[in-house]
């Protein structure tokens, strides 16, 4: 026989287990196994948690419960009808678990590669089709996206490139002065900005602000089933969402990179007037005389490629979103990391190509 009384609610049960264990160790109760009868006539307040705990102490749903109040009896009935033993945690061998995870990851990677190929295939098909019927380029959407990824990025790209220009010039002056070659700072700023920094910095900013936005936008649409709705209406999400974003970024990246180059040079020129007593005219004269046009071209060639990669990865990861807000977050992170990684790897590849081409 188990006698209970007083308040048995979710807020009153804290620490009950410890007190029970203590009492058991001290030798109280608990001789017979199996369901006990319960006398709950003295219970004042009861809720489902309390009823559950009493029944568990009594040994399960079969326990007979005598109650004082009708509500309590009903509550016990409700809890008895729904009591289930939570499944015991399964023990999994460490090695098996690790191998299982590895297998899953490999299969996922395989699937990812296949869907990536399908994705690029689809883009190419739509792109080619769009040449046949040019209205499928969705110029309105492209312009709208360009406003987002180009116009709205001008300020941040401009400011950061300007600062980098200043930093390079300052470092150039400091280091080259040791050899009395501080006028070469102009080449350092010009070549550095044109070939690498302008376009790379722009690409990283764009990956962070536009690539992530693409993933989050398309991913949220995926969660809200908007993409499914588009498909049922007969709108191809690649044509309506992906292609305009890719086109917008392919067009915007060179424009942004050019803007970045210019503000970078401006930053360099400002730094040179401060540290070298150059005038602006001297700076740009020397730039024209010493920095060949191909330094500029190499950067500009890279820009649209980076734009394509960032947009494609952003959209692709957005379409991979499954189900939840958590997935949107994960894939947005992945999209930014992957696009920056790809941009830098591609930059290295371009360096090799330009080296071989001798430009």
């Amino acid at each position, binding site marked *: 026989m188990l006698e209970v009384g007083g308040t048995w*609610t*979710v*807020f009153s*049960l*804290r620490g*009950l*287990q410890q007190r029970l264990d203590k009492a058991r160790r001290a030798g109280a109760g608990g001789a017979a196994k199996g369901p006990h009868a319960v006398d709950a006539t003295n219970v004042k307040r009861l*809720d*489902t*948690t309390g009823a*559950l*705990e009493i029944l*568990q102490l009594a040994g399960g749903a079969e326990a007979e419960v005598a109650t004082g109040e009708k*509500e309590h009896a*009903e*509550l016990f*009935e*409700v*809890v008895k009808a*729904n*009591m*289930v*033993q*939570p*499944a015991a945690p399964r023990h999994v061998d460490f090695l098996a678990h690790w191998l299982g995870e590895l297998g899953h990851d490999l299969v996922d990677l395989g699937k990812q590669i296949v869907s990536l190929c399908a994705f690029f295939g689809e883009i190419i098909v739509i792109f080619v089709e769009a040449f046949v019927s040019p209205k499928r380029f969705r110029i309105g959407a492209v312009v709208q996206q360009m406003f987002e990824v180009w116009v709205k990025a001008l300020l941040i790209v401009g400011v950061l490139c300007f600062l980098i220009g200043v930093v390079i010039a300052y470092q150039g002056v400091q280091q080259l002065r040791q050899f009395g070659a501080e006028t070469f700072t102009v080449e350092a700023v010009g070549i550095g900005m044109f070939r690498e920094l302008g376009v790379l910095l722009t690409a990283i900013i764009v990956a962070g602000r536009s690539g992530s936005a693409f993933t989050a936008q398309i991913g949220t649409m995926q969660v809200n089933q908007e993409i499914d709705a588009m498909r049922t209406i007969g709108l191809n999400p690649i044509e309506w969402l992906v292609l305009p974003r890719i086109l917008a970024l392919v067009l915007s990246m060179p424009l942004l990179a050019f803007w970045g180059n210019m503000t970078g040079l401006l930053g360099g020129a400002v730094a040179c007037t401060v540290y070298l007593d150059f005038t602006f005219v001297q700076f740009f004269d020397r730039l024209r005389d010493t920095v060949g046009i191909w330094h500029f071209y190499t950067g500009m060639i890279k820009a649209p490629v980076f734009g394509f990669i960032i947009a494609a990865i952003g959209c692709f990861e957005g379409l991979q979103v*499954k*189900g*939840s*807000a*958590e*997935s949107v977050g994960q894939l947005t992170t992945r999209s930014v990391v992957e696009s920056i990684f790809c941009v830098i790897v591609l930059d290295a590849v371009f360096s090799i190509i330009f080296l071989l081409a001798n430009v």
Partner: protein
Amino acid sequence: MSGDEEDVPPGRTLEGGQLVDHRDGRDVVLKLRGVRTQFGDHVVHDKLDLDVFRGEVVGLVGGSGTGKSVLLRTILGLNPLRAGKIELLGTDTRSVHGRAERQLLSHIGVQFQDGALFSSLSVADNIILPIREHAGLDEGLMQSIAALKVALVGLPPDTGDKKPSELSGGMRKRASLARALALDPDMLFLDEPTAGLDPIGASHYDELIGQLRQSLGLTVLMVTHDLDSLHAVCDRIAVLLDKRVVVGTMEEMLAYDHPWVREYFHGPRGRAALKQA
């Protein structure tokens, strides 16, 4: 005009928006007085009074855009209250902060329309979260509470381990109810609980609410458009009309003279539900 109160068209009501006094000496669990909700220039509710008494189930109905969910959110403090006073479980919600606010919130449960389960947690962890935060019980007991609540709302036992994204819409609603019931609240707010459930599931849901109300002394305010639910579990019906509510039993509502109310309760669906009930 003078002295003929009977002819004064809709709007003239007793205390708390009632048509006939049903208080019967019960506590007022939720008390709204002169509530005004406004978004920009758009006034959703104005001078709205509503009383909900202990142990009753009140169904909140109204046409689209009359602000049913908005009212629920205002009561819960998710919308700013522009004017008026809301007393929940005897506490003025405007003046409650910090510890007292947490205490108050641990005595209410809310089920949102689309579940609003935390997508990064399993269903069982969703249920345990409020218990761990407010009551802090043993892990083992909390697990069995979660299993109990999952069974209580009619979900299969393995649901506890699943993530919300793996559940169907109806199952998410049930899981959300299980989370709302986690702490055996005094007052439960339900936003369209039976919308999207199959008729069998919906009537089980109604039974469940009725059962819990009986055994736990639960007070429920539910936004619903399910006329069957209104018949089956609701003691009184609150209708949002002209930025205010009018509350009454089904019989009073059937007799109430207002074009929208008439159409709602006497329309083909209303009649069909009435016939069944």
